[in-house]
């Protein structure tokens, strides 16, 4: 009983900690707040109900990211999603640079968007990203490279942005 309480408390703490991480990743993938909410709830519902034994907090984080990406993929394959167009939502940013950068990342193809988000925002290494996405490191590297090139083009070749 004590162990179960600890496990529940730990899961609650992890849910609190990685709530925004999952939400941001879901939003970057779906580009729709409502869909991101759905994905968020699905991911944490799975986390609460799972019997999987996690080795560390990093393991939990990697699992949550993996499940988020998978849930987003499921959303994209949904026939209802294919027939709908997400509403253009203007997120409020503090500076024009933030808006430009975020908009540019949103315009990237999804596979590039995922690695860019994980690499630049979650500070994950190429190796970790490859492990989470279950792809080769070279694939992640090439996707990062192509994503950067696209971002440079979209940002107008501004020299002030360092990648």
């Amino acid at each position, binding site marked *: 009983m004590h162990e179960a309480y600890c496990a529940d408390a730990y899961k609650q703490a992890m*849910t*609190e900690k990685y*709530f*925004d991480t*999952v*939400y*941001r990743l879901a*939003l970057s993938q779906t580009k729709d707040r409502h869909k*991101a*909410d759905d994905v*968020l*709830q699905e991911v*944490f*519902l799975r986390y*609460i*109900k799972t019997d999987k034994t996690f080795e560390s907090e990093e393991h939990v984080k990697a699992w949550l990211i993996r499940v988020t990406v998978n849930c987003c993929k499921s959303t994209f394959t949904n026939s209802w999603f294919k027939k709908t167009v997400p509403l253009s939502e203007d*997120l*409020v*940013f*503090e*500076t024009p*640079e*933030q*808006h430009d*950068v*975020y908009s540019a*990342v949103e315009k990237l193809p999804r596979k590039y968007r995922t690695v860019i988000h994980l690499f*630049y*925002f979650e500070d994950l290494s190429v190796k970790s990203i490859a492990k989470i996405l279950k792809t080769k490191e070279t694939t992640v590297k090439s996707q990062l490279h192509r994503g950067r090139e696209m*971002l440079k083009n979209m940002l107008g070749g501004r020299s*002030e*942005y*360092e*990648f």
Partner: protein
Amino acid sequence: MNFKEIYKSANDNIKGDRALIDNVYKKAQRKQRNFFAPSFAAAVALFALVLYPSINTHHADRTAETKIAKIYDSRLNEKSEPPEKKLAESEIPTQSEKKTDTVQPKKEQTSNDTPQAQAATENSVPAQTEVTAENSPAEDVAVLSETAEEFAVSGADTFSAKLASDSSAPIQSGSITAYALLPSDMSFESPVSRQKNVAALSAGEHLLAKSCENDDRYIEIFPTNSAVCADGGNSSEYIAHFAYDGTDYTLIAKNVTVAEIDALLKSLK
């Protein structure tokens, strides 16, 4: 400007709705408390394993009914043929056949036994009917009506349902599922009995089979303990006892040959 810092600061402004966490926990608790799925599965399993086999007797009966229908059609064809044609086709019956075909209520005993007739009698009637073996061939027919003979079938002979797929199974009217081998001109009067007279027998039902040609030719089967047997029959009736499924039954027959009764009882074995 560093892209990484700008992108991070842009994402830092994005916050999820914290109320969703409560929703997640509520959903999780609701799913844990959801007893509908297991109870529904249990109900389906119960229906499939217990109730459905007992309900779905229609399919089980159909195989037998199909076979019976074929036999019944052949019987109908036989019956639809004119009697003259039948007579013409059939050979002149031998003396022993004549005697076993019908049972006369009163017949004088004859002592002119022929070996062939005696052999025929022994073949058609089992050893348990000692009375028949002792008497002449004519008596094996007449004895049924002359004196109320009683014989008991061995207790070890428990009766079980015999499928009507047997080519010799008697068919009465319609696609009935008669299990007992009745003479061709007889049929059980109770509709329940027509469908499953063996089942009816196990339920202790009173069965009455009458001949369509002769009202005074019948076979009655009923539990020995029932009130029906109180009258004990009369002198022209043939009485037999047998056990079925732990219950003693009495068979009363009139104007029926030993061979026919023997066939009926054997068909129930």
